[in-house]
């Protein structure tokens, strides 16, 4: 089985204004590896996934998922529809 793994590292990074290089240095990889992760070209090891989650202070499942994450626009639209 070769399941797709989706992530929202780019979203967390953009939200906090962190460069790829800063994140890469914090978790001990090269900046290009963060780029490949964000593009979905590479599945991280459990160790790297946990390091990235710990860096952002969230649970691993908030960053990585077997199903695509809902887009920010969809979440905002849903929040706007809620009375």
């Amino acid at each position, binding site marked *: 089985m070769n399941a797709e793994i989706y992530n929202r590292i780019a979203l967390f990074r953009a939200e906090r204004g962190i460069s790829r290089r800063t994140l890469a240095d914090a978790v*001990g990889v*090269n*900046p290009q*590896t963060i*780029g490949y992760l964000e593009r979905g070209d590479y599945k991280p090891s459990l160790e*790297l996934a946990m390091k990235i989650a710990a860096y952002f202070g969230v649970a691993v499942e908030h960053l990585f998922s077997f199903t695509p994450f809902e887009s920010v626009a969809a979440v905002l639209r849903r929040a706007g529809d809620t009375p």
Partner: protein
Amino acid sequence: MTRKTFADYADDSVRWTGIPQLLEAMGEGRQPRYHLRILPIITLGLASVGMVLLLADRQLYWLGYTLLMVGFSLGTILPLFGPIKPWSGARVDEWDRQVRHNAYFATFSAISAISIFGLVLLCWLTLSQAWSAPDSLRALTSSAVYLMTMWSSVPTLHASWATRPIDEEEDA
């Protein structure tokens, strides 16, 4: 203000070429790395055509050998600038290790297949063409050079096509 001597001008001209900076970067394992998608194909193509010529016709031996050596020489440059980082000196992370693992697995598979085919072919040629011992020896040494060319070229070829280049964006 002091005037520059001839030696100073010579030093400036060498620095202008960028070679000292490149050598320094290579020593620290931080030279630029590229997705070399075409150069390994040219390298393997030259070496393969060379092997075919030198095995097919004794008259074309030196032409074939020259093409093989040009391919071999180009092949030695590929690991320096290709996407696969060296075993030591550079900062290698899990992505680099996976790319290297996949590339060398493909390389060993290709070399194994070519070696088996080549050994059978050489045996058949030796018998059918009634090669002398020196002829067989030349073919065998050329085959070794061809396999070394594969060893240096195929990992770069595989890694360059298996991954897509990534932009540097805001990495500064």
